[in-house]
């Protein structure tokens, strides 16, 4: 029985590590996505800046986009997670015969939907996405209009 406790403890621990790695990847992906969409529209951003948009007004555009990205991702992720967990909770995951730390699984594992996870993680995702958005937002705010519009004026 104590071995099972160890396994559960391990699982929780690895869940945290996975979480950190996943969040790292996500933050990187978000910054990358925002920068890519920014560079594609660099010229237009330069025009907006030239005609009188304040630096913070430019940053706000990026932050709004980050927020929108977060909301869409959270929506899709929540639905996907809900459905997947729901289905697996029904059919179970076949772990029989798999050994872990000397404990051999004898039965199917049935994941349980924890409503809490569907609240806490989305909030984290939203906050992290906005934080990740700060870097490209700052970049846009600091950009000189002439540099952005190098092609013409």
């Amino acid at each position: 029985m104590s071995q099972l406790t160890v396994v559960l403890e391990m699982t929780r621990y690895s869940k945290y590590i996975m979480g950190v790695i996943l969040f790292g990847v996500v933050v990187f992906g978000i910054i990358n996505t925002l920068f890519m969409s920014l560079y594609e529209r660099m010229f237009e951003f330069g025009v907006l800046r030239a005609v009188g948009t304040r630096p913070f007004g430019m940053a706000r555009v990026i932050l709004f986009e980050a927020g929108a990205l977060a909301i869409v991702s959270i929506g899709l992720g929540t639905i996907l997670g809900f459905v997947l967990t729901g289905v697996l909770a029904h059919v179970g995951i076949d772990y029989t015969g798999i050994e872990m730390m000397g404990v051999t699984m004898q039965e199917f594992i049935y994941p349980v939907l924890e409503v809490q996870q569907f609240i806490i993680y989305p909030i984290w995702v939203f906050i992290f996405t906005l934080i990740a958005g700060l870097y490209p937002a700052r970049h846009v705010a600091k950009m000189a209009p002439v540099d952005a519009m190098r092609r013409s004026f």
Partner: protein
Amino acid sequence: MEQTQQTDVIVTEGVTKVYAADGIPVNALNGVDLTIQSGEFTALVGPSGSGKTTFLNIISGLDSPTDGKVWLAGKVLSEMSGNELSDFRRDHIGFIFQAYNLIPVLSVEENVEYIMLLAGVPKAERHDRVIAMLTSVGLEGVADRMPTQLSGGQQQRVAIARAMVSEPTIILADEPTANLDSKTGADLLEMMHRLNAETGMTFIFSTHDPMVMESAQRLITLRDGQIDSDETK
């Protein structure tokens, strides 16, 4: 040109610009002293690379000079903060770019009203002014279209409408007819002339186009970043 009630809208003093790209300094402007008065219709001419674009960028606060001073509507540009400069451009300068530069994801109306939106003009007034301005540039009924659905000449008219709708002090245009056929360019020029006469807004444009030079009241020639000649007709 009437000589009454004119004020200096742009004054430059020893404006110098050195680009230091790739470690090789390029003197784009070498001490330009110039005064532009309100209501002028002035063309900035000179061979390619003579510094026209650089000069327009600097007098509009899009770029800062390496040396020298610029007064725009009585204020020194280099003494303004980022927000002040943005607001100043919004309120005093209308830009017309060579490549039209409309925002492709916004409709014609949204493009034209953008600056008024920044300035906090109420929606109903924005709409009325956009429609009136589009009519004035000969573009009735295109307010809901997207820029890509318009011809080059029409897009440039939208750009002119966008530049003028907030009644700025100055309209700056960098080679506004360069991408247009000569007939369209001539129409556009005539329109700018009319708007200049009607509103008294100051127009400054850089150009290679002999037709544009012809129609200007004042012709400033740049050569190697210096004023080569300055004639008023």
